[in-house]
């Protein structure tokens, strides 16, 4: 078969596709109107695993509240990529959109425009001046303080700490960071690099541009610089940071010596807790981020304002034993309890 025949076949295929698109579009138009179904969109800030759980929550809410949910996970944490998607989904005529804002300070003006065209809520990372209806997410400052408390638990004598995050500009990163250092310093709005008994490596959070490979390199560099110190703790503020720290510690045979505390529930993080290589992780509730966002947007589309979020979605702590060593209370989750909970939610 020569090249031109292949091209002819390809062109025929494209034409068939166009016809199919047209036919199916027409059919789907005919099916409309039988029930009051609203369409909403959820746009995340990256394609990480964390959002897959949120997607399940969003889709469950979709089926519970008769909503067609467009769930979009931009290929990278880039404002331009995210705003292109947000603008387009709003153009398609969705009644509302939930967004995990990447750079609140710089997206606020554009988000105000979105809020004029559709019901806007922010989730996971807030943009309070964007004229959004409400924010669905964790209180990141309190979650950061919880991480600070875990660091104090694991190296009570004080020592060197390194804090890693993808970008420091998003509010969730800033708030988590401040929560951690405030807890370590036992004061509000603490300034470093010395926070009480803890000295912050490089005097600031180490960023990697939301790049997990870069995060691992950065963690390796920090370990190399700190490995001779008597007590070291490393904190990952974004989901992939903890596995990156763990991987770097394993590569340098420093697991055990370096105490790792993180955020979110990556499989490597949970396995690390079970293996005793990660002390603890503070987890958010992405399932409820997705579920509540869709529930609120569906209610708003139908004129019901009663569902608006008034409180933050609570965080939880996962450790190996699930017991707080100070109070001896079983007020934390073990990895198994957490996984059983997630599996139940996911219907596994």
């Amino acid at each position, binding site marked *: 078969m020569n090249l031109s025949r292949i091209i002819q076949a390809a062109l025929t295929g494209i034409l068939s596709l*166009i016809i199919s698109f047209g036919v199916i579009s027409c059919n789907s138009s005919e099916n409309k109107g039988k029930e009051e179904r609203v369409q909403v969109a959820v746009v995340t800030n990256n394609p990480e695993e964390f959002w897959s759980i949120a997607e399940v929550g969003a889709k469950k809410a979709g089926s519970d509240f008769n909503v067609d949910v467009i769930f979009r996970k931009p290929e990278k944490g880039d404002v331009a990529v995210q705003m292109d998607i947000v603008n387009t989904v709003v153009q398609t005529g969705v009644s509302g959109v939930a967004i995990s804002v990447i750079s609140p300070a710089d997206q606020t003006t554009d988000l105000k425009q979105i809020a004029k065209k559709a019901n806007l809520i922010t989730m996971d990372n807030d943009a309070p001046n964007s004229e959004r209806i409400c924010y669905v997410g964790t209180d990141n400052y309190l979650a950061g303080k919880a991480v600070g408390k875990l660091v104090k638990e694991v190296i009570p004598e004080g020592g060197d700490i390194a804090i890693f995050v993808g970008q420091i500009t998003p509010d969730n990163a800033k708030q988590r960071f401040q929560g951690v250092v405030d807890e370590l310093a036992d004061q509000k709005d603490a300034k470093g690099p010395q926070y009480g008994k803890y000295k912050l490596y490089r005097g600031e959070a180490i960023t990697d541009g939301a790049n997990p490979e870069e995060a691992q390199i950065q963690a390796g560099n920090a370990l190399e610089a700190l490995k001779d110190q008597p007590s070291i703790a490393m904190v990952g503020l974004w989901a992939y940071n903890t596995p990156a720290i763990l991987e770097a510690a394993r590569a340098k045979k420093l697991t055990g010596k370096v105490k790792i505390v993180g955020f979110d529930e990556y499989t490597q993080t949970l396995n690390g807790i079970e293996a005793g290589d990660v002390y603890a992780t503070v987890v958010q509730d992405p399932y409820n981020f997705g579920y509540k966002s869709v529930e609120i947007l569906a209610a708003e589309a139908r004129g019901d304002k009663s569902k608006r979020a008034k409180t933050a979605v609570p965080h939880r702590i996962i450790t190996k034993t699930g017991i707080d060593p100070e109070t001896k209370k079983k007020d934390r989750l073990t990895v198994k309890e957490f996984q059983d909970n997630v599996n139940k939610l996911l219907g596994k």
Partner: protein
Amino acid sequence: MQRIIGVLALLAIMYGMLYAVNPKAFNHSNQQDVLSQQAFYGILTLGIGVVIITGGIDLSMGSVIGFAGMLFGALVKNGMGPIAAMLIVLLAGILIGLIHGLFITQMRLQPFLVTLCGMFIYRGLARIIGNGSTIGLETLAKTNPSSQKQLDWLRQILVGKDIEGNLNFPSQLIVLLIVFAVLGLVLHFSIYGRYWYAIGHNELAARYAGIQTKRQKISVYIICSFLSALGGILSMCYYGSANPENTGVTLELYAITGAVLGGCSLRGGEGTVIGMVLGGAVLPLLKNLINFSASKEWVRNLIPNMDAVIPVIIGLTLLLGTLIDETLRRRSQTRKE
């Protein structure tokens, strides 16, 4: 001409599919968005196109865009007026192109290598300037309040967004038209354009014919980097922020693909400004088509993880477009023979 018809056919097919998927895509607001992005890609495609015509390549475009956006932000943040900052950024673009050109012509280094190194260097410089942080127009207006008026004016003039972020008119089309007209005149109606085609066809023969090939090659790299720097400012104005890690990433590849789709041969010596602009219009339209397709439940049922599939769809469509284009070109050549 055949190649222009080929890319026009591709665009027509995609517009047809867009209408079939969701007629709402043809509303005024969405078409303004698409036209803005097509204009932006068109400007970049023209930049890389003239380099490709001379048989060269510039892989640093995306990093120059990121660097330019960050430099513009940093200058304004530190108290400089936005218009002065824009002029400095454009001058920096010219300087970058000059350096590339000098390395390529005087040191006889491969364009691929020189611009590959540039890709790393300018991305690194963007990171140094930004210190890991995004710089945005709103932040700039707060840190340098006197810049607000000029920033609003620049945004309105360059991308058509008003003080509240409303896209009133896709002004980037005007910028594209100016670049298109200037490059069109130079490429198709001046002696310099003929020099560039001659260099692309056979550099040695061009040199023997008395053309100052080094000077001409330096000039196309300057044009390319100048347009990349302009792209950095346009991106900053359109999206309201620049990020040292992400702004401009992969845009050089999209621009090269646009140029090839529009009729430029990577071997050099071929290409037209109209073809480049049309080629640059394909990718933004394709992205819009994919986004509108994702609004349909049946499409999402068919392709559950749409965002993961996007690069595959883009790659396959561009490959198909290139194949169609190449076939048409060969047919045209056969007929001529």
